[in-house]
């Protein structure tokens, strides 16, 4: 998949990202990454609802759940794969974490182009997003828009 794949997208086009299984290690990696990015120095995540079943159960959850931002990042990665630097420069990503994701669930990022607004010098792609489990049930849903220059002006 190349960073210029957006050129082949039009209304109705589907986007596919990498299917991954939610693992305890991935939850820890996200916790470490978030805290390190916040602290500015290597920092390890401790016990919380994303890393410890007992802690999660004390908060009323059946087991540890994934930080929603992990799936949000898998959707962001899909947008980056298709749109390259244009996703990083002018875009909007809005997602809602409508169902919890548990360790062992398989998650697939998907998108459908709902509209392409063609202007003289740029095009704005609007995309419906979902992160679905192995049964096809959406657990995170949302939308994105990415602005790209038209090829003649790129």
């Amino acid at each position, binding site marked *: 998949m190349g960073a210029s794949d957006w050129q082949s997208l039009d209304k109705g086009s589907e986007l596919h990202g990498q299917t991954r299984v939610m693992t305890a290690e991935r939850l820890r990696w996200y916790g*470490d*990454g978030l805290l390190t990015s916040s602290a500015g120095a290597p920092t390890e995540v401790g016990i919380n609802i994303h890393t410890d079943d007992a802690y999660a159960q004390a908060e009323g959850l059946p087991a540890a759940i994934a930080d929603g931002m992990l799936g949000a990042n898998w959707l962001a990665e899909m947008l980056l794969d298709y749109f390259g*630097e244009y996703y990083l420069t*002018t875009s909007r*990503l809005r997602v809602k974490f409508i169902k919890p994701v548990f360790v062992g669930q398989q998650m697939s990022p998907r998108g459908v182009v709902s509209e392409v607004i063609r202007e003289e010098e740029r095009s704005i792609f609007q995309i419906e997003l979902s992160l679905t489990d192995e049964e096809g049930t959406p657990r995170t849903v949302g939308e994105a828009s990415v602005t790209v220059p038209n090829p003649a002006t790129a």
Partner: protein
Amino acid sequence: MLDGYISDLEKGDVFRPTEFEVTSLMATQYAHGVEQTHEFFHSANNSLSRQVRPITAVHADKMKLLDANCLKEQRITGGRGPDWRIHFEHDAESIEPVFVGDTIRVSGRIADRYWKRGREYLLYEIEVHHADGRLLIRYRDRTLLRYRKNEETE
């Protein structure tokens, strides 16, 4: 109310801004935590010629803002509040990329605090500006204060 726990925040609270330089570690470790291997996030050897921080790392900006304003619950250094919150919505608009080496200023407020179906929510509105005044990211974030429902408010 500022300076207490996150659960003490009220509609209308305006955070004291936090300003810092974005380091390579902040970008690369966040990307590593979500398995984003694009060189954009790991070096300047990319089409933008500068190392980029993932847009989604605005989640870490929220943490820094909370650490600076909720002094009884500084999560980055392992602090805890009465309950662990659940992230419900991430909505980030990228106006310009955040590059490593940029000094950024993170500001924000509590736009709303409300009950819905037995659960209490905080709505954050956060902006990330470059030190020179340019708006880089506009971010809205909706978070449940706790997972467990309060049946009386349903």
